[in-house]
């Protein structure tokens, strides 16, 4: 391989935005953010589609790197914005993924499967309705909700990522959360038969 020189990671994360137009700088961005961008896209679209979308996210970022403005958004928010935009073009795929998540959504042979099964011990009965509620949200509300819930972006970062006003982030988020609360309120997990039997 000719690429052994890449073993030296250039610069600290803070220095990255200033070296965006160099391949070294971009390689560092890829290394630093690949895992979380992949996780976010895989959560929204499933593992199979995620690979292509994540590749496209970084490729888009690489091609548009000259238009990146560090005063407007951090690299992280910028990448999430690109990824969210690409996810938005896969609406049917996202709905399908949500249906699968609500139902079961798991490759039974996959590593990590048991972890997910174990984590939803008693929340089982809520899954389908919660997934359906997320699928029924407006795309723009869902984007804000998931950037906060899954990507853990601040309101400022969401605003920068999506190119919307700060106040709009808050109103979209509270509308989305209200709809989810309505669903969750209808089915109190404490009334789940499995729970009461234990009591």
């Amino acid at each position, binding site marked *: 391989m000719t690429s052994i020189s890449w073993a030296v990671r250039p610069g600290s994360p803070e220095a990255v935005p200033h070296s965006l137009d160099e391949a070294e700088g*971009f390689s560092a961005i890829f*290394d630093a953010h690949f895992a979380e961008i992949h*996780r976010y896209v895989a959560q929204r679209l499933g593992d199979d589609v995620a*690979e292509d979308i994540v590749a496209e996210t*970084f490729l888009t970022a690489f091609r548009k790197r000259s238009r990146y403005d560090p005063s407007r958004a951090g690299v992280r928010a910028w990448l999430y914005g690109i990824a969210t935009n690409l996810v938005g073009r896969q609406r049917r795929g996202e709905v399908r993924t949500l249906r699968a998540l609500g139902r*079961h959504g798991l490759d039974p042979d996959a590593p990590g499967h*048991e972890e997910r099964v174990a*984590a939803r011990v*008693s929340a089982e009965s809520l899954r389908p309705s919660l997934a359906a509620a997320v699928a029924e949200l407006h795309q723009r509300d869902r984007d804000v909700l998931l950037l906060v819930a899954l990507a853990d972006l601040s309101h400022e970062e969401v605003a920068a990522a999506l190119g919307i006003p700060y106040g709009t982030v808050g109103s979209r988020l509270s509308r989305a959360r209200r709809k989810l609360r309505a669903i969750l309120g209808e089915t109190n997990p404490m009334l789940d038969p499995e729970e009461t*039997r234990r009591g």
Partner: protein
Amino acid sequence: MDELEKLRELYGEPRPDPVLKARVRQALDAEAGRPRLRFTKGITGVLAATATVVTVVAVAVVVTGATTAEPEQVVSPGVTTTVSGRSILLAAAVTAEAGPENDGAYWHVSKLNRRTYPETFGAEGDRYRVAESQLTEQWVTEDGEVWVGTRSLGTRPASETDKKAWRRDGSPTEWRVPGGTLSTEPGRGHLETVPDGTAFSMAGRKMTLEQIRGLPTDPVSLREQVAELVRDAPGGSLDGVVADALSGLLWSKPSPPKVRAAAYRALADLPEVRYLGEAEDEQGRAGAAFSFTLQTAGSSRLPATVRRTLVIDPVTSQVLSSTVTGRPGTGDDQVEVVLDAGWTTEKPAVPALP
């Protein structure tokens, strides 16, 4: 718990794909086109990182494994599968080769999972962790129909030390965790069909029954083909990933006897596969322990390097347990005890309490 927590719980964690990052990197290299724009870091960096981890792990294993490994098997990380470990794998291959062909309507795997939760409970300064046991069964027909049965067997303090802290905490029988409540009581069982019927995968890639049956029966060809299937890393193969995929052929997939035998032989020749000595699985069944480390795609909650430890029964060639260990000290291990893996005529049913 608020709705954002519920939402995170709904989405869960995507499954780790150890070679995905390398694959995407390669795709980007190809797309970016010009040699100056290569994203590729080079495989040497990755392998060096793996080697460092192996060194650390080899020390950790002596403590946790409680094995009777001979000293030279653990003190020199550079030395890989020892003669005795290799001979155990080769002997298992001979037994595997004589195993039964498909003699039932359903491929059936029954396993006991134990998962230690990352949350801690109890009084400040006297915290403890809990672990939940769960029975998971899978059935697959020749036509690709898939059923999955699950049943919680209840949650307990994770270790003897945790048990003492739990007693001091008043021996509670329920614990709140993100996603619900854990209880010492077993839960009701569930049986579900899996609609799109993807039963098998290797390093995150789907595999059909035909593909599994068509795998080479010669260890060198099998290793090469598996490496081809799982690898897109430039410059060489990630042996930990190949080892992981090969170990999956031993129990989680309906591999024909000759393919299982070849998988054992291929593992015997992999330098990453370390023999840890005699060990018992969680059920107290005696076997031989082997381990290797592998890189995963990683995420904020999943470590980028994990260790897989297999305990096999050299006499029957069955895999007894498969444990994935994350960062040492976090207690977030994932233990799978294989109760049964083979063909059966019995129909899928809700898992019964053992």
